[in-house]
């Protein structure tokens, strides 16, 4: 046998290895309880940190979403309330003017995302209030009508049109609906909203 071959065979002895479990338990034994404790402690620490981060993130996101949603809901409530106030101020022009300004101010804070989030019931309620306010304003001074036309109203109309498109309408309703779409295209959101409102009363 050649020396080179013997050396190769000697190197092959490297595959002799102790059982992993034995090595692990021996190390644990020599290092005492603390070794295991240390490992467990580290594992527990990571677990705790991870859990904390997870729980914190969950509550943070939940809180954030709730707050955001609540803010949207609140703005719509105020907006609806403002329309109610316009309706009630029919006898006092000055007061009605103030309420219209207030309505404009609040409606400017409504974003497309807010409109997307608002429920159908709230939307219906808002539309009804806007129509009532519109009637009051028309009786006081028709120039005020344009004042309650604002970005929020237009966004609402767009949303309503998208929703109504999913429904089956009668021939008469279709006419009003097409009219509302045309008005929206022309930028006349309040009149478009009026047409949409009428859809509830015609068959």
């Amino acid at each position, binding site marked *: 046998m050649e020396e080179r071959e*013997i050396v190769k065979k000697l*190197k092959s002895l*490297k595959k*002799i*290895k*102790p059982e992993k479990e034995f*090595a692990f338990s*021996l190390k644990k034994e020599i290092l005492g309880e603390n070794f295991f404790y240390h490992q467990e402690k580290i594992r527990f620490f990571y677990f705790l940190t991870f859990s904390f981060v997870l729980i914190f993130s969950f509550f943070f996101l939940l809180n954030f979403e709730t707050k955001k949603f609540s803010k949207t809901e609140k703005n719509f409530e105020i907006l609806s309330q403002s329309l109610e106030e316009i309706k009630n101020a029919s006898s006092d022009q000055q007061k009605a003017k103030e309420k219209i300004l207030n309505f404009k101010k609040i409606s400017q804070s409504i974003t497309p995302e807010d409109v997307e989030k608002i429920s159908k019931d709230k939307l219906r309620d808002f539309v009804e209030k806007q129509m009532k306010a519109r009637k009051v304003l028309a009786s006081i001074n028709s120039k005020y009508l344009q004042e309650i036309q604002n970005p929020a109203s237009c966004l609402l109309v767009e949303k309503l049109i998208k929703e109504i498109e999913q429904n089956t309408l009668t021939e008469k309703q279709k006419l009003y609906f097409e009219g509302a779409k045309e008005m929206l295209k022309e930028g006349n959101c309040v009149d478009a909203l009026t047409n949409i409102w009428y859809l509830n009363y015609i068959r």
Partner: protein
Amino acid sequence: MSKKKKFSKIFDKFFEKIYRFCYLKTDSQETAKDLAQEVFLKYWEKIEEVENPQSFLYKVARDLVYDFYRKSKSRQILPLEEALISDCQNLEEKIIRDLEFERIKKAILLLKPEYQDVLIMHYVEGISLKEIAKILGKKEGTLRVLLFRALKALKEKLSQKNFSV
């Protein structure tokens, strides 16, 4: 670095090597486990004094193997025939094992302890002659000669006609 961390690092690096060294010198898994365990217990006790862990571990392992043979006369270097008979008891295991692997393992056991040491340390574990010189407390030149002789002796054992596992 803390004592535990230092020990853990050295244990991970050398335990397998020390176990293998003991196993090749005793041809018994149980004995190798006991001796390797003893080696690392000693290292744990002296960890703060030890400057060269590798050298310390091999020195202790060598001493323990020597003690083992000294205490247990029956385990003193076995004549070839005895070694063969004892192994025949576990035929199933013998079949599974690589015969050539067993041959070289047995042949090492029949060499002088100092030949075994240099062959295992240098060829199996890949330790440099300079490092082995530190472990065995010999000069590098002397070790070179020892290694040459050890390899020659091993070659002779493996060439013997009646040497088979």
